[in-house]
């Protein structure tokens, strides 16, 4: 299970949300600090592109600032925020398809070449070797994710990495809960086939598992 916001913060965030909704700029700033990493990572996993993830995260929080006062139920904040993020992700995807531009990240790095992702590496890694292996594994799994359809990918990321409940995902994507579960099922099934195809077995992941 991916790292999510601590429960204490989430509990505390109800009062925070209420203040932010009433126009308290300090509370709104605090919300950005709390949610920025989540929204960025959601967009990053969706695009596998740092710049586009930054773009989506910024747009999402600008939109949040503008429209938060209009949010009727504080309890729906999480779904509401992911709805904004998903919409911006889809918009960016349409733009990318229209411009037919290719991100440098989509090219595989040559053997021995220093990874261009060193800036975005996981700080929890103990040593450079482990860090490199982790980065390679992450990239490998990210590439597998990118092979899924957009609909399956957004559901898998929301469920697996953002920890949303099926009901919350359905709310965010404005589809039925059954559709969400179905997409999740076929997403996981698809990933299973992709992992087998790429020969990523339990043994290959053994050092991490």
């Amino acid at each position: 299970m991916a790292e999510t916001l601590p429960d204490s913060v989430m509990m505390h965030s109800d009062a925070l949300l209420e203040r932010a909704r009433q126009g308290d700029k300090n509370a709104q700033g605090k919300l950005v600090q709390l949610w920025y990493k989540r929204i960025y990572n959601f967009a990053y996993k969706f695009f596998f592109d740092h710049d586009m993830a930054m773009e989506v995260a910024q747009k999402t929080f600008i939109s949040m600032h503008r429209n938060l006062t209009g949010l009727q139920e504080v309890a729906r904040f999480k779904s509401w925020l992911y709805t904004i993020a998903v919409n911006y992700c889809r918009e960016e995807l349409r733009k990318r398809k229209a411009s037919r531009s290719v991100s440098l990240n989509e090219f595989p790095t040559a053997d021995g070449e220093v990874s261009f992702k060193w800036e975005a590496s996981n700080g929890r890694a103990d040593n450079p070797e482990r860090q490199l292996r982790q980065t390679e594994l992450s990239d490998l799994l990210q590439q597998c994710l990118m092979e899924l359809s957009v609909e399956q990918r957004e559901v898998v990321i929301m469920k697996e990495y953002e920890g949303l409940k099926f009901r919350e995902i359905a709310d965010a994507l404005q589809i039925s809960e059954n559709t969400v579960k179905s997409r999740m099922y076929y997403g996981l099934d698809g990933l299973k086939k992709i992992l087998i195809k790429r020969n990523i077995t339990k043994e290959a992941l053994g050092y991490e598992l």
Partner: protein
Amino acid sequence: MNYKPDEGTLMAYLYGELDAPEAEKVQHYLQQHPEALHHVQQLRNVRTALESLTDVEVIAPPVFVDHESKSIPFWKAGYFKVTLGIAASLLFLLVAARLIGPEVTYSNGELRISFRQTPVNTVSEQTLTASEVQEMINHSLVKNNETIASSWEASNQEIQESLRQNLSNNSARIDKLIAVASQASQDQVRTFVAGMQEENLKLMKDYFQLSSKDQQMYVENLLVDFTKYLHEQRKQDLMLFQTRMNSIEKNTDQFKQETEQILASIISNPEGTIKKVNNY
């Protein structure tokens, strides 16, 4: 037992979102169906593999918090502004009153307003008689008439003087103009007459030329016509002569024939003929 969990139920089971009785049912089903259990296990393995994809560390951009307080200071409040406005107006009026010093009195149906002075009784209490008023009017009329007369006389003089001056000025100008005009007219007449003479001469010349030409043409035409006439006449005469000649010829032939006949008859009957001749 025909129970078979669908994909949605399996997902809910996999992520622990099923209530206890439902989860128990699925678990029971999986225990009885090893292939389904294997499939769920595979999906669980995929989930485990996905855990290797970790979050990217990112620092949230600085947020510029607007520290401006929502509460409006009392000096910006509307009611305070209105009150301050009224107070300022009153103060202004008081200061103005102090500086100007107005006094308002009302007595015997008269309202008097004065500034920095006590009101003076401007309305005279004594009334004037009709004769006095008439006298005043007359006096003012006389005065007025005198003034008008004097001013009229002065203006009259001025007008006359200016008229005289204008007349003299104008006559001088007219004389000058006439002199210039006469000078100009003499020259013009001379030029005109010369022009006329020249024009007449030209006209006459043209006329004679034109008339001589016409006469020549007329005479020529006349001669041509006369020639034509003579020619025609001659032709007709010739025709007449021809006709007469023809008739003479005809008569001659006839006479000749008659003569021949007579001769023939004489030859054929000489005696009778002699007798007859003798009888004659």
